[in-house]
């Protein structure tokens, strides 16, 4: 059951990029005990939202206040650049 339907726990798949992937690994699964947002995922991972340059949920660019559902895919990006 998704969190939006009853407030049970939910799992989201997290993919980290940039320096964040070195610290946390590239792929993680985060379990939230109730309906949550990207902010709650960041709390579990110990990530400061100010570090992030980009947050994408299910292929859509969002703010950290975005509500999450069970099975959502979250991409967290810290600044990477350099294309020469």
């Amino acid at each position, binding site marked *: 059951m998704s969190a939006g339907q009853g407030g049970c726990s939910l799992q989201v798949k997290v*993919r980290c*990029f*940039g*320096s964040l*992937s*070195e610290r946390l690994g*590239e792929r993680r699964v985060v379990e939230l005990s109730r309906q949550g947002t990207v902010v709650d995922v960041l709390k579990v991972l110990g990530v400061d939202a100010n570090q*992030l*340059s*980009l947050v*994408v949920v299910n*292929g*859509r*660019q969002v*703010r950290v206040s975005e509500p999450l559902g069970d099975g959502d895919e979250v*991409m967290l*990006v*810290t*600044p*990477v*650049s*350099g*294309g*020469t």
Partner: protein
Amino acid sequence: MASGYWNRVLRVDLSSGVVSVQTVAEEVWKLCVGGAGYAAKVLLEETSKDTEPFDPANPLIFALGPYQAGNNPGNAKWTVAAKSPLTGTYGDSAAGADWGVALKRAGYDALVVKGAASRPVYLSINDERVELKDAGELWGLDAYQTVEAVQGREGGRGTAVVCIGPAGEKLVRLACIVADAHSFAGRCGLGAVMGSKKLKAIAVRGSRSVPVHDEPACIRLAKERFREILAAAKNNGFRDHGTPNLCITAEAFGDMPIKYWTGDVWPEGAQKLGAPNYTEVLRARPLPCANCPIGCHRNIEVQSGPYAVKGPGPEYETLGMLGTNLLIDSPEAIAKANDICNRLGIDTISTGACVGLAMECYDRGWLSKASTGLELTWGNADAMIELVRQIGMREGFGSLFADGALAAARKIHPDAEPLVAHVKGLDLPAHDARACWSLAVNYATCTRGACHMRGVTEDVEMGGFFVPELGIVKDWTQFFCPENKSELTVKLQDYCAWMNSLVVCVFMVDGGELSFSALLELFNAVTGWEWTIDDAMRSGERIFNLQRLVNLRDGHGRHTDTIPLKMTIPAKKGFRAGKTPAPFEPYLDRYYRLRGWDRGGRPTRECLENLGLVEYAKLAGVM
């Protein structure tokens, strides 16, 4: 004398052997700053629509700016420009290492080479002593051998050298100019212009410091900014992993080229080619240019096997164009191909495009092993390496690509031309405009053809680069939303035009997190001009329009401000599935309006008057 400038341009006529020094007034620098701005002014004034790239009258312009005064972080960059053999119009490229700083220290703000020698020569510059010397024994050497040989004749390793390899000698239109066997002015085929002049190398020793407006402030600011940029680059992984750090992120966001722009996703390939695997497998270490806190270039080593190689390693662009673009996932094989490109002196981006086109045509049955001598199947690293060598040597089947991918396509098959991903004849670099839609606008309108570095808008969309002074902040523009794509492009093209005229490495701001305000503070400490952000942006706009006037004079305009067909075909899966920047025309219309151009892409009289460019427009025959 203007602070930060010598007000001196060295001029060399290879036809007559005459060397002279031209005095340049401060007003000229205030108009165009230096670097790419000065090059545009020279190209507008000293060439015509009819000047062919290999015509001796085509000037090869090496230009510096005020940023080369002192030890400013990221000041190793220098600009080279001419009419490009690939685009037939304004073409520039930038490289680093030690050469540009040495030329400034020799007492010059720029070097303009015209004419053509009757036999191979190299130019020796040692402050005021400037000589043309015989290069007969150097002709045919690869670029690394040339640097070593010239240094052996000209004072040893302290002498900075730029040169061409065999590709430039053979007028391969993908030829680059190699600096100190370390950095490469890759784009636009300017190495072939150098080859057409039979100029093999330019050696420089410089011993002087150009006066600056506020020397104590310059020293203090340079040290402070150096420390800050170093800290930022350590924090974001740029110093440890260089540009290969981008691969995994770029692929995940659909930005990396796959199968010559016909593939959608290849995470396994990006994992193998990108950091940290790249760093580990190739034993990569930073290879910094002079005064660089980042050291994005990599020194690599493959100790044994068929791909054994040691020296400058492939950058992100090379990993993209000779890697994922061809479904090749071996960092070692790409390192070997990169070394061949470096030594023969060819641009790895356009070379990757040529190999991609060859593999796509092979896949379609338009080329065969019988007709090429190579098994050009996707992923065949050894065939890729051999084709790269042949292109650089203008030899065998590879000679078909020596005039570029577009020219090759026209010879391969009647339907091959639309497969070539280019704008104005310059091949797309390793960034996909279907992922970052601002790139579509940037590619279509960039004055040297398809280029990301004259705007770096993709780094804003992927969240790596913001400029709050220009309102470019997080979430201001978003993936797959049309809003602000044209605005972003105009702002960053102007900012980059100004930076490329200073001349500062763009990675100081994009990756090194040097703010616009801090860069401007350094600029003002050097020049004493007290410019504001608005002044700098207006300067960038003026320089961009100067370059555009060269484009328009040479026959470009709305009909060549286009995006390749492949950028309009959506992916079936992955981050950019179903998304493209088509229809593109509304973005272009908005871009023209923002620039003050008419529907044909020509600056209006009002625009030209505001920028003080009316006389230049008349010179270009544009009004």
